[in-house]
């Protein structure tokens, strides 16, 4: 009711504006006005004779839309124009329509219909794109085709983050023209939207998701600001555990993707269409293989090699490269809250190359990079298939997210247990131009299998996120593999406490620290660690810190480039099954461009730190460490002190 009143008022405004504009045109003042009226005419880059500009849409006009209700063939549904909301988004109107179809009368607004083309008088007016949560009527918002064609006309770079798009244009001239703009579009990686800006060594998928969600919330109408929201893109997930789907929901729902347990593995159906068509189902494949995740929507308009779809952004990530596929719809699942299409990919075709405000742009000929992932699980008796293979979209956020989700899912699927599990994982990350780096992960999951959440904090996922989000250069991940070994045991030694055997020692004499460990079962274990204390600490009280090896970070230089970043990931801490006894030596150290110098005398330290340049070594306090291997992971930390006598006795 409110919308109708508003519509009447807007119409009146439009009439008055039209009157003014006629007058303005007569005076020759129209050209500079940034309004949409009068733009989509012959000569306009977005003009198409088979489209109807929004200014010509009137209340009550009737037409139809195209979408796939089942299978791969688009079918018609009737529509009637309610009215036009001018400037619904910046320089973007919204056409409100009522849909009429027996299925839509039940399902109302359907996730997955985003992008369905809408026609009036046989001319395309735009794409089904916006709806209401808990909508009581089959009413939707249509993104005008002109805005989508503007997105389609945007030039694209030949290379995205180091990956050549390999677009094979129908019209070579227009692509050549596009290429000329590449200098502008090939932005420096640091300015790419969606890049993680935090501490790379502490890359965090959840934090990255939050940053992206904040950006999206700032740019899209959302709950609390407008009842109209983009029709969610159902993210159809196959081959994953519910826990993994739940994590996917946590990460991706704020980005407008609605993870749903579905199916599909990304194979090809020979009977599937070879190309996309207007109104056909399209999937954006974020993972495929033994596991799959596909964002499902509808193609709005195919023009040569490219097409526009969705009518709203997928994640508004701008120029990107994500694999796409022709989709097959199995059914509309109706729901009071939000109905959605359930489907699966049937033929990988092309790539999503631009994710904009009004649409996603897909190229048939572009090929998106993917990361082949293999996972081998060992230590589970009788495991039928210990090897997993899948491909993950190569994208700054999606890759680390789906790698952690998929690895956790695979492990849970294969080794779900109520028992304690200790695990160690050795992973290899192949980065083009930088060879392979080896990464170690480990953990003890008490009372069950390690979850996908744990993998999201793994060294592997942090390294993957850091590499993809590095600020220096595009990085292409060529492959990723993980070999995980499980042991059904709680490999934990709890540090009960520490005591120095001699609280006061002579200069040059080592300190002896007795550590008492409590294993999960079995007798208490003690270990005496000998810590050399140099003679120059005579007269000092030395504080000895006892920490697990996996918590003791090695000194590294802040990375200056991708190679240095990779090197820092290879050995970030001391052996996880070790105890480290350390003390501050009192001498400073510096790190610079991959080099770390500790225990420096004050004069040298002063010379190493210029006052005239800020490109300088970073200072740190030097530590002396004794690393003692232990058979299990230590839990807990402690501190003891020992006094060094001032003079030799």
């Amino acid at each position, binding site marked *: 009711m409110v919308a109708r009143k508003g519509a009447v008022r807007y119409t009146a405004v439009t009439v008055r504006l039209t009157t003014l504009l006629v007058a303005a045109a007569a005076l020759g003042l129209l050209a500079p006005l940034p309004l949409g009226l009068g733009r989509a005419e012959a000569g306009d880059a977005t003009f198409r004779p088979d489209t109807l500009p929004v200014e010509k849409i009137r209340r009550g006009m009737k037409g139809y839309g195209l979408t796939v209700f089942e299978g791969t063939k688009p079918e018609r549904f009737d529509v009637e124009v309610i009215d036009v909301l001018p400037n619904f988004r910046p320089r973007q109107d919204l056409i409100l329509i009522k849909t009429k179809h027996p299925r839509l009368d039940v399902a109302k607004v359907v996730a997955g219909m985003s992008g369905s083309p809408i026609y009036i008088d046989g001319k395309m007016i735009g794409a089904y794109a916006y709806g209401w949560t808990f909508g009581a009527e089959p009413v939707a918002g249509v993104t005008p085709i002109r805005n989508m064609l503007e997105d389609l006309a945007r030039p694209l770079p030949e290379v995205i983050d180091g990956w050549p798009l390999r677009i094979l244009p129908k019209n070579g001239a227009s692509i050549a023209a596009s290429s000329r703009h590449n200098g502008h579009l090939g932005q420096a990686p640091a300015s790419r939207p969606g890049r993680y800006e935090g501490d790379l060594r502490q890359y965090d998928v959840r934090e990255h998701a939050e940053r992206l969600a904040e950006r999206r919330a700032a740019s899209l109408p959302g709950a609390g600001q407008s009842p109209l929201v983009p029709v969610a893109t159902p993210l159809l997930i196959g081959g994953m555990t519910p826990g993994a789907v739940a994590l996917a929901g946590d990460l991706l729902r704020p980005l407008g993707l609605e993870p749903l347990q579905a199916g599909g593995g990304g194979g090809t159906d020979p009977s599937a269409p070879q190309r996309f068509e207007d109104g056909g189902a399209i999937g954006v494949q974020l993972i495929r293989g033994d596991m799959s995740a596909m964002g499902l929507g509808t193609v709005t308009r195919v023009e040569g090699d490219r097409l526009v779809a969705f009518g709203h952004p997928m994640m508004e990530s701008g120029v990107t490269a994500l694999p796409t596929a022709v989709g097959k719809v199995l059914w509309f699942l109706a729901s009071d809250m939000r109905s959605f299409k359930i489907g699966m990919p049937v033929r990988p075709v092309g790539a999503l190359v631009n994710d904009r405000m009004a649409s996603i742009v897909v190229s048939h000929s572009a090929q998106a990079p993917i990361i082949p992932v293999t996972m081998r699980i060992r230590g589970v008796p009788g495991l039928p298939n210990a090897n997993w293979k899948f491909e993950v979209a190569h994208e700054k956020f999606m890759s680390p997210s789906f790698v952690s989700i998929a690895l956790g899912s695979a492990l849970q699927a294969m080794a779900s247990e109520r028992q304690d599990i200790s695990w160690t994982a050795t992973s290899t990350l192949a980065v083009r131009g930088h060879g392979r780096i080896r990464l170690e992960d480990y953990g003890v999951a008490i009372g069950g299998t390690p979850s996908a959440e744990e993998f999201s904090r793994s060294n592997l996922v942090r390294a993957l996120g850091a590499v993809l989000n*590095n600020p220096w250069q595009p990085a292409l991940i060529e492959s990723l593999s993980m070999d995980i070994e499980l042991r059904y045991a709680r490999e934990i030694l709890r540090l009960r406490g520490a005591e120095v055997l001699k609280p006061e020692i002579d200069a040059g004499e080592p300190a002896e620290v007795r550590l008492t460990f409590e294993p999960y079962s079995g007798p208490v274990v003690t270990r005496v660690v000998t810590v050399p204390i140099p003679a120059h600490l005579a007269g000092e009280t030395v504080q000895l810190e006892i920490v697990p090896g996996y918590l003791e970070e090695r000194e590294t230089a802040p990375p200056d480039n991708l190679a240095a970043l990779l090197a820092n990931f290879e050995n970030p801490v001391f052996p996880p099954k070790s105890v480290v006894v350390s003390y501050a030596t009192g001498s400073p150290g510096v790190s610079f*461009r991959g080099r770390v110098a500790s225990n420096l005398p004050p004069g040298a330290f002063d010379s190493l730190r210029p006052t005239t340049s800020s490109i300088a070594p970073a200072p740190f306090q030097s530590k002396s460490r004794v690393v003692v291997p232990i058979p299990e992971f230590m839990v807990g930390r402690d501190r003891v002190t020992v006094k060094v006598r001032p003079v030799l006795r």
Partner: protein
Amino acid sequence: MKRHIRWFCAVPLLAAVLGVSLAAQAVGTRRFVLHRGDDFKGGDLEGVAVDSAGAVRAGLSLGSVPIAEAGSIWAALPMRDGSLLLGTGNEGKLIRVTDGATRVVGETGGLVATSLVEAWNGTILVGTLPEGKLLRFDGGKVVPFATLKGAQHVWQLAYDARAGVVYAATGPEGKLFRISRDGDAQVYFDAEEQQLLSVAVAPNGTVYTGASDKAKLYKLTGPGRASVLYDFERTEVRAVVVGSDGDVFAIANEIKPDPNAQKQSKIPEGAPAGPVAPGAPAKGKGTLYRFSPDGRPDRLLEEDDDYFTSLALGDDGLPYVGTGTEGRVYTVDRSHNAVLVADVAERQVTALVMRGKQRVVLGSDPAVVHPVRGVGGPNAVWTSKVLDAGIRARFGRIEWEATGPIEISTRSGNTKEPDDSWSPWSRPLTAHGQVESPPARYLQVRARFSRDPRAVLTDLNVAFVTDNLRAVVTEVSAKAREERPDDAVTSSGGPIGKRPDSNLELRWKVDNPDKDELRYRLRYRMVGSNTWYDILKPNEKLTKESYTWDTSDLPEGRYRVLVIATDELANPPELVTRSELESGVLVIDNTPPVIDGLKLVGKRLQAVVLDGVGPIQRVEVSVAGSDEWRPIAPSDGIFDEQREELDVDLSSVLPAGPALISVRAYDSANNFVIKNFALK
């Protein structure tokens, strides 16, 4: 005899106010007097030398070759082809300098190429940190030469031509390695200290090595046969060299690193490297010693405000030291006459080559090579530090002492650092004369030695007179010499305060912008009266900002004091300015209260206690002969007036038999009176 040279006097040269005897000729005239070595330093020394006695003469003339590829230079080795090989930081590059052109010729992979030495007739060895690698530089290639087990830092290399071995001083395990030609490295000496920073070999094969963190200089006569030649009781022996006559020279420092750097210190996070806030330079002090071949120490030079980073011997056998804070080079003779021979723009002089044809001064932060072109030259110019008159001044004559013709110019301005707003340099004066620079707060003097490179400038002074600015008295305070603490609450029952002192300490503060000598006059008046009386005697001249006023002869009452300040001692009568400020009310109470009408009615004590100025503070009663005074309260229960009536039941105090009873009353200034009566 040890000579302690304090080169850097922090006191600005607002010195030398002329005595009263000259007042008739030049009231308020002052002089910048440059006389000592300290006075002539702090400015810009281009090709001139300043010695500790205050003589300025033509010094080292230096060229300048910036090294863009490095931030610091740690070592320099003259090559046989006439080029210079540099070991640099902070990327461990080897850089060759040929005729002013620089080229990276080797990468050590370390943070710093710390030391270079030519051994075995042309083999160039490079010491590095942080991996403690000993490398060989071989025609553009840097290859490993020897493994120094346990070493992370190679600080210095020394070649023993007689034995055909190289010594490497290393850290952090304080080991000295002896390396043979085939790369075999043996620990020659293992010190208790963390670092061995320096090493040198005497002509007779004796090895000297200096340690840190305790600044010990060791003398080694064989593997492991070490004795401490000298303990400097500092933090490091930075460098040691041996002269051809067997004299050993060593520099030792006491260095305190930037405390903030220690506070910030932690393992760097994984964020991409970005700008690092420049560190504050370390503070330190340095010393240079000479040891005779038989080990007798002789302290040649001592710096309290700078420390020493490099040491080299000149062709003349004299030691040259580079400093770590001011970028200076000193030399000193056996008479301890120290001469500042170069002052480069870089913060540190980290290496010196002062012998042979290729003499260079190597500056770091930033890295610059300064070839020594010679002594003096047409561009030898001494520029004074900025001389501050405090406020705007007119300048008079400039006079100097010199052994030959020199050209003196001046410039002036009102900003602390000379900039475009300063006047241009004046026309050069070749004889004493009037300063031509316009009136300003700051002045700089420049001397050119181009007319006679052998000329020596020894004394220089410039007369100036500042604008007369009024001194203003901003605060006057007074307190008794013995006074209760400010936060004490007076009590009628607590401990008794000290007896009052009739001497009042008057103090005042004055804002005296032109630092004129001031004369003060003090007056007082009673509150309610407009007549001021002098406190000082008729010809008493008071120039301090305090005065002890004896008030014992004054009637008790409330007073105010007036402080009058004039600059008549520094200015002619027509220019004298004056300022005065009145104090708050001062209570002067030097007489005790009075006890009136004291009587005993039954066992009740009755009396009236009166004081002239303040309220009664306390009344007590005691049986004579006892030191136990019992406080009693006034009739209204509170001591708050100058007159208090007493009517107190003393049943609990009075003895049964006859006794002498004492009553004691205090006023607020702790003056008291005692009155007795007999109890029958």
